[in-house]
């Protein structure tokens, strides 16, 4: 075996037979410190001129082994740590974990808590897509949209701060419900946000979507077919852009998602522009879900009565939720104790990343950035 450093420094590759061969290719490192990787992703790419021949992700720069940590945390404690996986949909991660614990304990969550959770989920999804939208435009060289996206995102974080107490890693969900009741201003603030969002969203199309340069940069770039998307385990907007039905909210509804009306956004092109459009249209769907629920928050408890120390019965529990990036699975194996015996997070970014080479191979270096931007990678989510 040769170490990665050797391969990188000496420009050698290990042939299938095990011997070294000098390929003479231009091997460059994208990351771990690079403006386009939005984190500590490290891609070793082989170039032929401007054309990408090979992409090899090197992961682990932010691997904290949350799965191992969770084995020593109780069922109440481990939820907070999952905020640090996909920090942009922290709330949805917490939601998945809490649902898994509730499934094991068979806790009946009050309806009010369910509606609040769904509202927060959708707000998180919009916030995440807003950030992605700005960062995506920045990947393609337009800086201004980033700040405009943050203007709207800031409103959401304000709402989060008011009700949950934190802006990014909320830890608002506890097994059995939510930690606090919503703030009295919650509904009014959200309505204000929706008005503002609707008055600004058309600007997004003016600045980015309709722009001829943007369309040329993304259309037909990073294409993945429906079969490949399934085979690579893609989920979320990446899969839906290829026409794979993968919205967990529709396929396996949880909480109150079967009572609200929304569309599963499907595109067929499977290129970067399709992925872009799926996310932009998803924001509209999330707004529609929020509008349906915001006036219908039922009265009642926000938390079910639970024991102080939670003990899951012996067995295996798996929940899947739809985060902003795709399908998040939480797999808890319990031996009947107060801590999980083994916990596994099936993160959406990890599978989506594995399809990157397939998508960007043969394209230009600039196409790689467009593809990476539309994959919406959050590195702690991949590394966990």
């Amino acid at each position, binding site marked *: 075996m040769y170490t990665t450093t050797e391969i990188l420094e000496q420009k050698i590759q290990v042939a299938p037979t095990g011997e070294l061969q000098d390929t003479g290719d231009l091997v460059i490192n994208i990351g771990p410190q690079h403006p386009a990787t939005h984190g500590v992703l490290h891609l070793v790419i082989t170039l032929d001129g401007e054309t990408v021949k090979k992409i090899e992700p090197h992961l682990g720069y932010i691997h904290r082994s949350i799965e191992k940590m969770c084995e020593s945390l109780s069922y109440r404690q481990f939820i907070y740590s999952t905020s640090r996986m996909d920090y942009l949909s922290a709330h949805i991660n917490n939601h998945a974990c809490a649902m898994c614990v509730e499934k094991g304990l068979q806790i009946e969550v009050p309806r009010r808590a369910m509606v609040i959770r769904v509202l927060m989920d959708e707000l998180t999804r919009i916030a995440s897509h807003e950030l992605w939208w700005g960062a995506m435009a920045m990947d393609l060289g*337009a800086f201004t949209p980033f*700040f405009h996206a943050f203007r709207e995102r800031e409103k959401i974080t304000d709402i989060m701060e008011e009700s949950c107490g934190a802006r990014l890693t909320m830890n608002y969900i506890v097994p059995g419900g939510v930690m606090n009741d919503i703030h009295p201003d919650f509904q009014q603030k959200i309505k204000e946000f929706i008005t503002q969002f609707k008055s600004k969203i058309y600007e997004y199309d003016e600045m980015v979507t309709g722009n001829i*340069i943007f369309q040329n940069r993304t259309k037909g770039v990073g294409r993945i077919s429906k079969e490949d998307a399934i085979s690579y385990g893609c989920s979320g907007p990446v899969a839906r852009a290829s026409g794979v039905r993968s919205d967990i909210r529709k396929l396996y509804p949880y909480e109150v998602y079967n009572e609200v009306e929304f569309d599963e956004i499907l595109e067929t092109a499977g290129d970067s522009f399709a992925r872009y459009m799926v996310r932009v249209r998803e924001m509209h769907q999330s707004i529609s879900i929020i509008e349906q629920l915001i006036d219908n928050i039922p009265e009642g408890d926000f938390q079910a009565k639970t024991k102080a120390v939670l003990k899951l019965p012996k067995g295996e529990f798996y929940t899947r939720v739809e985060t902003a990036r795709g399908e998040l699975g939480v797999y808890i194996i319990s031996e009947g104790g107060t801590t999980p015996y083994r916990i596994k997070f099936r993160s959406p970014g990890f599978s989506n990343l594995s399809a990157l080479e397939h998508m960007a191979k043969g394209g230009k270096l600039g196409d790689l950035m467009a593809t990476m931007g539309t994959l919406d990678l959050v590195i702690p989510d991949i590394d966990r």
Partner: protein
Amino acid sequence: MFSLQGITKGVHTWLYSNMSSTTALVVECAIVMLLSIGLFAILGLVLVLMERKVAAHMQIRLGPNRVGPWGLLQTTADTLKLVMKEGLTPDGADKILFNLAPFVIMIVAMLILAPIAFASGFQIWDLNIGVLFVTAVSSISVIAILMAGWASNNKYSMLGAMRSGAQIVSYELSAGLSIISIVVLTGSLQISEIIESQRNGWWLFKGHIPAVISFVIFLIAVTAETNRAPFDMAEAESELTAGFHTEYSGMKFALFFLAEYINIFIVCAIGATLFLGGWMPLHIGNWEGFNHIMDYIPSSIWFFGKTFFLIFLIMWFRWTFPRLRIDQLLNLEWKYLLPISMFNLLLMAVVAIMGWHF
């Protein structure tokens, strides 16, 4: 009416009457040198601040506002910081070329300054092939970029430099053709004559639609030639981190940074001279009264006003558009701009021969 012409004339005659002609020439050269270096320094500071302010307001921010009133001294502070930083030379770099490149790019920028008329009678060298000189010399800047990219011994720099080479060489064509379309109208390559020919109106208005088309093409081409977004393939920070100047630091980086802004100023000055009449005030045909009022505004203000308007346009492009891909960039030039500008040149020639322009 205030004019710089009197001052320059006065200095010239005083020098030549008090010294031998050789000494006077040397002294004049020294004065010009100091003036142009001073101009560079001031331009660098002003343009960087302007860019940051323009960007900030488009991005619904305030921009620099802490150092000095309205952040006016921000760039000065940044420059001081850059001067104090260590200028690293990487071990694997080609030391001579690496250290030479920033100076080459500055020298090129300074050379183009020569034929530019800043105000009525305020010009360093009114040579009779002024426009040709500008197009010829501005091509040299690509050599500096290639030097920097090659000598850095860095793959990012290398890619950036190669992209820049392909880009500048191809965009020279349409920039040149749109300049030539004005030369066709004027019949002269001398800057002063081109300005003089716009005494009764700027070419942008006098030359009908072909002049407008060539003005737009000129703007696009010079944006590409100065490596500005949306054509900043040489830097492309989301792809190549910083492109050809990835390895530079401290003052050597500052020189590249400065040269970028000086180049913008120069190409905008050329554009203002060719299409908007340089220092020539806004004159409309034979409206004597109107023209007379316009003449009261000093010519230097006209020149800088027009130039800064064009600079603002280029900054506006940068803070609005995403970046093109390298093959699309070349497609745009070879499939759109070049055919259009060639056809446009033909039209312009017809207009000039038939005397249809005003």
